[in-house]
């Protein structure tokens, strides 16, 4: 049995080195009041005493490398699972032989059979044959247990979900009333004095919107409370004007969903805070899908005010004719889990089927399948100049009025220096788009390289370069 699990395989499964190090710390016997396996040694389970009152319950199936842990970590597998595997590898004598406890039996009975053996299991865990890690999206989707096949229970659950949905709809609408009233108050008092009214001004409404189960809008307000103080005083009025206008648009669109197209309905619900389950999206035959080779254009990590780390992976389809040819994978992991990064390396090429969330302007997506491709893909051909790119932004903004930013593509560009700490993207017609000041250091080596073919995100005020094809190679944001 221990032959199935090797340290190499465990290292491959681990989402990062930090997880392995954390697992090592957990290998002390005192941490594990329960550690056992079945007669064959195929199935092992344990209870790990964490910081909470109840221990985390961990189950690992060595045969197909399936696993389950009750801890809240969003790393897959988490350190507890890795610790059980590692201990079984190193110290199998520490495992007692025993009967399955109820919780192990329940997990066993709910598991979907894995038909592909080890390879399929590793793929489900986010590792391909080549050792390449898949998106957390894939891992999550595959790790989702199947529902019990009981029609009565299913009907009860559906009724319960419908009731909760109705309650939430009413709560969101009440929250939108509060939002409108609050915005009107701000207009009556004057936006010029908004910042002086203090953070509490936003905090109260943010809390109210969280209570009203509209976390998307609460998040936008929290971001505004941070951005307002990052913005120079003379530009704060414009920032507020635009952001509050967008909130009013969302609020109005939510109330008038019946008049919107299904895709725009999905957009407004998502931006308000409704989420769509990953497995539902992956199973949705009507969801837009696009297969082919994708360049991992950029990976970004950002800590949100809600203490979640937002991991963005930007994919660029290698065929310029593909539509949509940019996809954004977003994963969230708790900051408390330590450093974490996208499972992809910026610059690599993957062959994947991408499923887009329904939207008037599809962008956010999940990976349905993916395999790494050994050769670097050719950079796709873009239209020359920034004029056409800005037209594409206008179109996207017209189609979905509350987008924050939009990925644009253009070739025949250069990077120019506006001032020592500020760069701009420039085309041959003299159109200049200021680049995000946070990127100045990273983009300084692009000065003097000509021409560039670039993928960047534009929010109406600043461009954030995601990737560029240059005469000395590709530049990627990472």
């Amino acid at each position: 049995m221990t032959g199935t699990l090797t340290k190499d395989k465990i290292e491959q499964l681990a989402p990062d080195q930090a997880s392995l190090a954390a697992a090592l710390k957990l290998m002390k016997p005192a941490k594990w009041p329960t550690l056992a396996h079945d007669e064959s040694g195929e199935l092992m389970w344990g209870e790990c005493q964490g910081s909470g009152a109840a221990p985390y319950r961990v189950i690992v199936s060595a045969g197909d490398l399936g696993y389950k842990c009750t801890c809240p970590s969003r790393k897959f597998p988490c350190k507890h699972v890795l610790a059980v595997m590692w201990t079984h590898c190193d110290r199998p004598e520490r495992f007692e032989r025993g009967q399955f406890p109820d919780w192990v039996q329940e997990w066993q009975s709910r598991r979907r059979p894995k038909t592909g053996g080890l390879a399929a299991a590793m793929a489900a865990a986010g590792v391909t044959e080549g050792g390449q890690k898949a998106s957390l999206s894939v891992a999550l989707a595959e790790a989702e247990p199947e529902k019990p096949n009981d029609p009565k229970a299913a009907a009860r659950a559906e009724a319960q979900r419908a009731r909760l949905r109705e309650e939430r709809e009413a709560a969101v609408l009440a929250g939108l009333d509060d939002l409108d009233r609050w915005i009107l108050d701000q207009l009556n008092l004057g936006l010029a004095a908004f910042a002086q009214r203090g953070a509490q001004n936003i905090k109260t409404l943010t809390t109210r919107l969280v209570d009203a189960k509209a976390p998307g809008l609460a998040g936008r307000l929290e971001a505004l409370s941070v951005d307002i103080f990052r913005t120079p005083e003379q530009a704060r009025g414009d920032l507020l004007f635009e952001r509050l206008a967008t909130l009013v648009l969302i609020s109005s669109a939510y109330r008038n969903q019946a008049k919107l197209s299904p895709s725009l309905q999905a957009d407004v619900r998502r931006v308000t805070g409704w989420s769509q389950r990953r497995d539902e999206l992956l199973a949705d035959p009507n969801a837009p899908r696009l297969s082919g080779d994708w360049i991992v254009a950029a990976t970004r990590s950002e800590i949100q005010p809600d203490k979640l780390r937002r991991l963005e992976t930007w994919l660029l389809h290698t065929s310029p004719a593909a539509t949509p040819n940019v996809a954004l994978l977003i994963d969230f992991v708790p900051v408390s889990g330590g450093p974490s990064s996208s499972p992809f390396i910026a610059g690599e090429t993957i062959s994947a089927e991408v499923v887009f969330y329904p939207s008037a302007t599809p962008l956010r997506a999940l990976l349905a399948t993916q395999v790494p491709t050994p050769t670097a893909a050719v950079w796709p051909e873009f239209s020359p100049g920034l004029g056409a790119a800005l037209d594409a932004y206008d179109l996207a903004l017209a189609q979905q009025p509350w987008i924050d930013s939009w990925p644009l593509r253009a070739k025949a560009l250069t990077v120019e220096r506006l001032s020592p700490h500020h760069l701009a993207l420039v085309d041959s017609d003299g159109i200049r788009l200021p680049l995000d000041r946070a990127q100045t250091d990273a983009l300084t080596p692009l000065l003097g390289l000509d021409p560039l073919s670039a993928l960047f995100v534009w929010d109406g005020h600043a461009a954030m370069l995601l990737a560029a094809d240059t005469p000395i190679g590709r530049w990627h944001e990472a």
Partner: protein
Amino acid sequence: LIAVRALSSSDLDRLKQAMLLGLNRQPLKVPEPLLSLGLRAPALEQALTALALAGQQERFERPLLAPAADPVPAVARRLHQDPRPIVPSAPQRAMMRLANVVEKSHVGPIVCVAARRIARAGFRLHPFDLPRLMSHLRDEPRCLGAAERAYLGLTAAGAATAQKVVDGDISPESWTEFPRADRLAFLQNARRKDPVAARALLEGSFASEPAAMRTDLLRALEIGLSVDDLPFLESVAGDRAEGVRDAAAALIAAVPGTDGFSARLADAARCFVREKRSGILSRIGLGDAAVAFKPPPSANPAARPMVLARLFAGLSAADVAAAAEITAADVINALPPDEDVIFAAFFDKAVRDDDRDTMLLLAKARLAIADTRPAMLATILASLARDLSDPVPVDFGEALLASDVWHSALQRFVEGETPAKVKDDGTLIWTAALLPAALAAPLHDRLSSLLPTTSHGARTFIDFMLALEASIQQRGSP
């Protein structure tokens, strides 16, 4: 899209003005184009709708940026005109992995070692990696070529400084305007060529330097130190900064040709005595006379290290050997491995004189100490790798890998049961950084028995070495 652009800029400005000041003070007057769109709702909704539409119109505005005065500074072009080829992608990627995976406390010096190997191979760093790596390299002139200097110049505070840094043509007229590392290297080189002129240069700017800089520059006088320097040294021996006073006192004591120095050298030489071996071989004239270390007796054992530090400060092993009429190897081999103070004094002097052979001799003799003080092994290897410009010779590397002390360190990692005990304390990564590429394979074999987390950094350095070696082979001679 056409409708929301209906507001003229003056309408938009008036609307914004009212909202900034507050509708309580300046009641909303809905512009005609919005009224013609059917905006005849109650006043409360009117304000929100006017905000939404006007704010959305503003999001379609495009930025108008005037051309920059110096869009692509000449310095930026220099960054890409360095005639050295950019390091190929395989070693470049391995180098960046190193920067990611190596323990924080080692990463700066390790990146410097890797950058020196790239430079020695005739390549330059990829310009896109400079923003990430420059914080580690900026104080290491051995890593700075034309491209690296150009990047430093681009990010330098003042334009005049930037140009000088880029040109790299530091001269007696301009040397005070360069970064610290450049100035030190310049003064040291000047001392090697013309000690008197170099001292005069220092005297000219000494009073206006900050204390830390005065100390560092003063220490550069150790190269080519002579009685000619005494008047200047005595003039700064009463400096207001303690560091400067200490440095001046140490240098005064190290001036060759003075009575004090000669007496000190003679005292130091007397510590090494040739002892006739007893026995039959010696009686028939075949026994070698061994050199033994006999430090001056000290009444206060606690003061012994201080006494020895003063005695050997600024003396090279060769100086002492010449005075004792033995070889430098005799001196070094006679030292007990725990004589930290004397080893440190000899090593510092060898580094300042760029005396590679003595550095290697000292390191070899010093390795034995790690038997009793395991933590010393990593320190010895680190200081050797940091200070040597090139990897160690193959025979030295083979001896290191075959040594008992290195095997003991490896065994400790194998047997370690706690995370702290299996964590590389620097022994493995610094071994990899020291060895020539010819020994990459034997090192890799020896690391195979370790946990992946323990050897990750060292294995990454091996990957870098091999990738760089392959690139050198592919290109031809370096």
